[in-house]
């Protein structure tokens, strides 16, 4: 009962405890998390991941010798209100850098607000093509998630006829535009492509089209609840026998909503799964559940990305010697660092990282392949 309160209380207690350890907190970092709105599901795990990162950064000496303190704001609201919330932290409470886990519309609003005057790390999966002074991106781009994965699946599962279905907005359209090239390169063909409005929650006619197209693989760029509903119906119609599914935003919560009954041959491609079997990932998960309890909100790629963002921010700031945007921009290219995701490099302001492909058939993800140091196709420069 009252999970939200308990989570909030426990993370508050945790942050207070941090404050007690680091009485000399001087550098304030704004962390923008979705507590409300469609992304509200990821608020708690994002907060926790960020708090864990702050603890580790402070334990290893902080940013340029100063301890850091996190200031959270809810940006699961429309862009105007989100920008307002960020501004409160920046102008009102003295945040010197930002880490954001939110949708692209909010990112565009923040880029306009920050205008290159404050460092800003954007962390979730996104469609690519965003460059700005002081903007650093850890999130996976479509090229990273698909370029190695599509040929691998074509080979492993022997699939060649792809059907692309996504919600009707920028991210799915941009993802599919790239996907077509990779499918072509892997010797496959696209047998169908469609976009459904975010407001539609019935997929019967789409499923019928998939069935008739003879597709043996479906690339899913539906988000959130739509993805859950689609996948449930997909398996309900027995289409899981006909085609494999690959999603680029199907994380642990979405899979839980889909349920083991409906997850046969459902793959997901991401830079992080809670089931990654590396030492770094295992110790991260241990630290997380130790700090927030065994019933803490499940770890997932989106929530965990806030951890990545803070670690990157610390790495860049320490390398540049300050949180000054010009200095950080100059130092950014080629910065390397390690996290639970693996060994990362900053190339073109984006994070070249390990990409994992996981199979969700059992109702939980098991990693079936990993691809090291996959660069994004983005090339932002000074």
């Amino acid at each position: 009962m009252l999970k939200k309160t308990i989570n909030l209380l426990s993370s508050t207690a945790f942050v207070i405890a941090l404050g007690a350890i680091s009485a000399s907190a001087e550098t304030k970092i704004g962390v923008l998390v979705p507590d409300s709105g469609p992304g509200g599901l990821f608020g708690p795990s994002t907060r926790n991941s960020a708090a864990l990162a702050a603890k580790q950064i402070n334990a290893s000496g902080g940013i340029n010798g100063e301890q850091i303190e996190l200031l959270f704001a809810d940006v699961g609201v429309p862009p105007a209100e989100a920008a307002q919330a960020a501004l409160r932290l920046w102008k009102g409470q003295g945040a010197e850098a930002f880490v954001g886990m939110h949708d692209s519309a909010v990112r565009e609003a923040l880029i306009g607000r920050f205008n290159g005057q404050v460092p800003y790390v954007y962390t979730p999966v996104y469609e690519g093509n965003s460059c700005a002074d002081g903007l650093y991106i850890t999130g996976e781009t479509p090229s990273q998630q698909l370029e190695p994965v599509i040929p691998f699946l074509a080979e492993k599962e022997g699939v060649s006829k792809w059907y692309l279905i996504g919600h009707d907005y920028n991210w799915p359209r941009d993802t599919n535009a790239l996907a077509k090239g990779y499918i072509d390169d892997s010797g496959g063909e696209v047998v169908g492509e469609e976009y459904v409005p975010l407001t539609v929650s019935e997929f019967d006619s789409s499923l019928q089209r998939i069935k008739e197209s003879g597709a043996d693989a479906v690339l899913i760029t539906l988000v959130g609840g739509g993805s859950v509903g689609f996948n449930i119906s997909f398996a309900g119609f027995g289409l899981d026998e006909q085609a494999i599914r690959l999603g680029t935003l199907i994380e642990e919560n979405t899979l839980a909503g889909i349920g083991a009954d409906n997850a046969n041959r459902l793959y997901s491609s991401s830079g992080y799964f809670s089931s990654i079997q590396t030492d770094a990932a295992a110790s991260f998960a241990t630290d997380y559940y130790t700090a927030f309890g065994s019933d803490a909100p499940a770890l997932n790629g989106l929530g965990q990305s806030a951890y990545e963002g803070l670690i990157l921010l610390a790495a860049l700031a320490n390398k540049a010697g300050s949180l000054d945007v010009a200095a950080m921009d100059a130092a950014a290219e080629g910065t390397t660092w390690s996290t639970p995701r693996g060994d990362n490099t900053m190339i073109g302001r984006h994070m070249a990282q390990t990409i994992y492909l996981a199979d969700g058939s059992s109702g939980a993800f098991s990693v079936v392949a990993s691809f090291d140091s996959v660069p994004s196709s983005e090339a932002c420069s000074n």
Partner: protein
Amino acid sequence: MSPVLLLNLAWQISTLALIALGLAIVFGKLRIMNMAHGEFVMIGAYAPVITSMLGLPGWLQLPVCLITVAFVAFVLERTIVRHLYGRMFDSLLATWGIAILLREIVELIFGRSYQSVSPPLSGTINVIGVDYPAYRIAVIIGIFLGFIGFSWWNTRSKMATRIKAMVGNPELAEAIGLNTARLSAGAFVFGCCTAGLAGLILAPTVRIEPMMGLDYLIRSFFALVVGGLGSLEGLGIGVSIIAGTQTFLGAVSSQTYGYLAVLTLSILFLWLKPNGIHSSSR
């Protein structure tokens, strides 16, 4: 028309009819525009989750669903909704507030995460030459039979007549000894329970989370508008047009155009035929 499209239409129409039924009852009998209707569908869909949380066996899902929804509906009727009879705009706004309230409460109890419910029947069966999910076929048949029963009850039973009398003329109804307060509460709770039942039935086929209700509200509302408010025949026509347009255009064109067509159709009806199709034959 392909057999699958036919079955999809049957599924969409029957489920929408069940969802919209409660909305039609509450509007038709009580003149309350219940914007929280979708949230009762949501609570119904959580019934399996509640059942397993309480450690009860699966066959108790139906009673758990009806008891939970009826309790919530009754409390809301006594505290809020009963003040709204005869205040149509206020009913729309206050129930909008109730919708937010219910979503937040469910979120506080169960969190934002998606819940998953397994269907009692899995796999597909072959009907009129196509493989179709067995559970859906069972639901279509069940709803169809249920509606036949309900329309029989609606024309025959004393209770339905009393409710009609009450709405037609509350003072007179009270004067001849009908307990209007109890009948109103009954009609509201009954309407919400059908929504809860719809939620329980849909649960294995849809996503389950606190925000899910909105999906169901809008389409039911437009179905009522098109069909004509407050009659069972009108409801049937309305859901057929709304679900039919969405499904048909979704199949031959795209979901986006289906969605826009439903909205455009609703506007035309609201503008040119505000009492719906069915009213013309009255």
